[in-house]
């Protein structure tokens, strides 16, 4: 059993509205799994089903090989998109309360909280009320509360919203550290650069359906367009442009080069290889730039969603 979480054919309806339509995802142990999708696609519903906040109408969910059961809440940590803590409750008491609800003993919770509060250098906040803290400060407390009980599965919904770049970096580092320690992480976000940076696998949900999933690298390979950015020094730019267009698909360059050279985006025709293009180019000048355009997560997201609509 290599998958920590298996969601099989889950359907969820609210009245006549279908929130999830036969969605299956498999999340391997120890990976960072990006759960992506436009607003209202059904991500939150899926996350709530995994958290047993709502039950699916049909389909099944397995955590570590066992059908999802009430005692599993202690093995899951959830940071919802809409953060919230009791405003008039003191930071320390609140953290202790939430940790105990996740099944930690009071003594153990205290010990672990001390570790995290020292690590984030926020021990001075222990006796303060949440309403006295800034938004970013409250987010840190919430992050600690989410991971304190060392869950096998961590679910972060937009974990970086509300953090400045420095603290976002700090949290990203902690998330990757948690993965090193064996946790599996579901990561739901709209910030595609953090998907590139952190996710091993992704699933894309659009309009209640899963439209794409797999290893990020595989998906990128699948979505590659065989387009290359080229740059070369040549005396005869106009001729080159014409000859190039005869043999390949050429579009305007969307990149910049430091040297003053001929630039273009060139897409290979079927059957052509990168070597064909390269040898063609070397015959016409000195190649100083030759890079395959790899689709970004952002490109894939937009393309897949548009194709689906």
């Amino acid at each position: 059993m290599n998958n920590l979480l298996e969601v099989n054919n889950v359907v969820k309806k609210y009245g006549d509205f279908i929130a999830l339509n036969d969605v299956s995802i498999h999340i391997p142990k120890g990976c960072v799994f990006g759960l992506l999708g436009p607003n209202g696609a059904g991500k939150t519903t899926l996350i709530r089903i995994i958290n047993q906040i709502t039950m699916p109408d049909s389909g099944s969910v397995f955590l570590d090989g066992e059908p999802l059961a009430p005692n599993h809440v202690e093995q899951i940590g959830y940071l919802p998109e809409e953060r919230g803590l009791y405003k008039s409750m003191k930071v320390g008491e609140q953290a202790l309360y939430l940790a105990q609800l996740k099944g930690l003993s009071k003594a153990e919770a205290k010990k672990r909280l001390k570790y995290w509060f020292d690590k984030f250098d926020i021990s001075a906040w222990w006796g303060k009320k949440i309403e006295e803290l800034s938004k970013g400060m409250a987010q840190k407390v919430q992050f600690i509360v989410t991971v304190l009980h060392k869950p096998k599965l961590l679910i972060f919904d937009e974990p970086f919203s509300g953090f400045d770049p420095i603290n976002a970096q700090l949290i990203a580092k902690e998330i990757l550290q948690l993965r090193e320690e064996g946790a599996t992480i579901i990561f739901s976000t709209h910030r595609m650069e953090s998907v590139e940076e952190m996710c091993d696998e992704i699933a894309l949900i659009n309009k209640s359906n899963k439209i794409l999933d797999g290893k990020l690298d595989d998906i990128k390979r699948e979505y590659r367009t065989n387009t290359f950015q080229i740059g070369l020094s040549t005396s005869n730019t106009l001729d080159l442009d014409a000859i190039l267009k005869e043999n390949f698909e050429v579009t305007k360059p969307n990149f910049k080069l430091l040297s003053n050279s001929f630039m273009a985006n060139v897409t290979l025709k079927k059957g052509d290889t990168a070597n064909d293009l390269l040898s063609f180019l070397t015959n016409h000048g000195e190649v100083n730039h030759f890079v395959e355009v790899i689709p970004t997560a952002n490109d894939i997201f937009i393309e897949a969603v548009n194709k689906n609509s």
Partner: protein
Amino acid sequence: MSKLQLIIQREFIAKVRNKSFIIMTFLSPMIMVGMGALVYFLMQKNDEKVKKIVYVDQSGLFSKEDFINTKTIHYSDYTTLGIEETKKKVEEGNYYGALYIPKQDSLELLAASVEFYSKDSPGMSIMNSLENKIEGKIRNKKLTDFGIDLNKIESSKIRTDIKMYNFSGEESSKLINGLKIGVGAIAGYLLMMFVMIYGTSVMRSVIEEKTSRIIEVIVSSVKPFQLMLGKIIGNASAGLLQFFIWGIILFVIVTVASSIFGVDVVEMQSSRVPAEQLEVAKQATSGGKGQLIVQEILRLPLLKLFLLFIFYFLGGYMLYSSFFAAVGAAVDNETDTQQFMLPIMLPLILAVYVGFATVINDPHGPISVAFSYIPLTSPIVMLMRVPFGVSWYELLISMMLLIITFVFVVWLAAKIYRVGILMYGKKPTYKDLYKWLKYKG
């Protein structure tokens, strides 16, 4: 510690630590006692003021002996001045009013033509005493005209005091009836206040969790039903603590006050009891009023009363606060609660009105009985009926109905609660609530 216990503990502490709770707990008994003392003081002052009433008696029927000064009313005879002159004088001077008894041919006409002039509307009690005076005088005059000896009439007057027993041979009295009304009314009223204060407190606490968005974190750890139940129990515990503290403070204040000022607490209380019961109490003065009241109270089935009080108190509170929790879950902020609050408050208020209107007059009448079965009103109405003795099968029916309804309402409220706490945005309609009931899990 179980999760439910954790939640109860948190809700209790959150409530008790709240500044308004602390202020309410310690200040309101002071305010209550202070208000009571103020009213008592003002009433004393009010009575001390002497009212000057003048009379113009042209009938010649009345004499000085008919208008004897009392502590608060001083009469003066202005007959010689004539009514017009007197009216002018009274209007200008510091008088309470002028009584005009004109000369008439017959006593009947006289009775219908007596007039009273005053600057402001006269008090009811003064008018009553004046009317009594005139009626009595005219009646006596008529009796003598009929040739009846007034002395004989006087000596024929006799007082009866019917002794009341129930079939188990216990003697009851009007005093104990008064006490029963008092005990029932206080219990019913307390329950209503408790439901209103702590029910809305449950509701507010639910709304707070929704608006602060912590709810999603909590329900990823515990079942919504546990959270709802914990909230209801936690708030109730805080409420019971508050009542307990109030009881102690009131007891201390009353004890201290009566020893310092020498106020006879029993007398203060009995002055509020209707006159006829006061009469009974006065007759028993030989045994000491306080002793009598204590004796009478001890004759009530105290243990049964106490146990039933606890049952209906908790049952009623739990029933209503489940509704309040559901309402809190359905809305985003307190201003949206209005439309849902009315149907909850209505039976509560109805129960108190029915209780005060029917139970006091006829504790075992059909309306009282019906409302003491209907679960939404039974906690209050039955609590008011219980001191008068309610048969065990009636209690059984009422309690069973309450328990069944309670289970049903909690189930219903939990469904609305579970869906509502995660719904934001549009204010739901009743139709939406109905739809939520059908959502699975």
